């Protein structure tokens, strides 16, 4: 029952963050450190679960001898999206909305850069059709 561990872990971390922030006086930075550690551990758990799913998808793609370039682009885009969201939410929680917004924006731009071959291929396809 992993979900139980996840919930308990999140609750304990939240309580600890509140404890440190309340009694911290001027040691408030440790609340952020605990938040970063907790979110990182959650992300590790989630991404390991996901990577097993993606192995299945990749095997399927190989079996259907589908072209591999687009699949790896999709995976890269998903990875960028996860990390960008991870970073931007952490920054916003720590009180830095501007930095969080910039990380989010940078993630979008990088996804666009990674996805350009797909867009070019799409344009060529459309041009051939017309």
């Amino acid at each position, binding site marked *: 029952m992993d979900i139980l*561990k*996840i919930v308990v*872990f999140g609750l*304990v*971390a939240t309580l*600890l963050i509140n*404890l*440190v922030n309340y*009694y*911290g*006086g*001027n*040691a408030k*930075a*440790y*609340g952020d*450190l*605990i938040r*970063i*550690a*907790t979110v*990182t*551990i959650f*992300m*590790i*758990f989630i*991404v*390991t679960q*996901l*990577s097993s799913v*993606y192995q299945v998808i990749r095997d399927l793609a190989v079996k259907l001898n589908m072209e591999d370039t687009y699949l*790896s682009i999709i*995976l*890269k885009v*998903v*990875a960028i999206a*996860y*990390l960008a969201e*991870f970073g931007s939410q952490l920054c916003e929680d720590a009180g830095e909305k501007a930095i969080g917004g910039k990380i989010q924006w940078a993630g979008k731009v990088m996804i666009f850069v990674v996805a350009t071959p797909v867009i070019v291929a799409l344009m060529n396809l459309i041009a051939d059709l017309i």
Partner: protein
Amino acid sequence: MFDFSVIFKLAGLGICVAILNMLLDSVGAKEWKFPISVVGVIMGLLLILNYVRQLFEVVQTFSM
């Protein structure tokens, strides 16, 4: 996978630094408050470093 020890260590570190700052106030050595909290934060970051590295490793394998 879910080791609770990290967050307890960090919380303990935070409380210890807070107590130390209070002690330094009462003793009157105010100039030592800053170095101690910097060292405390660095220790916390070192604790977290392994997890962030592990996260990036997993994401690397994920997007290969």
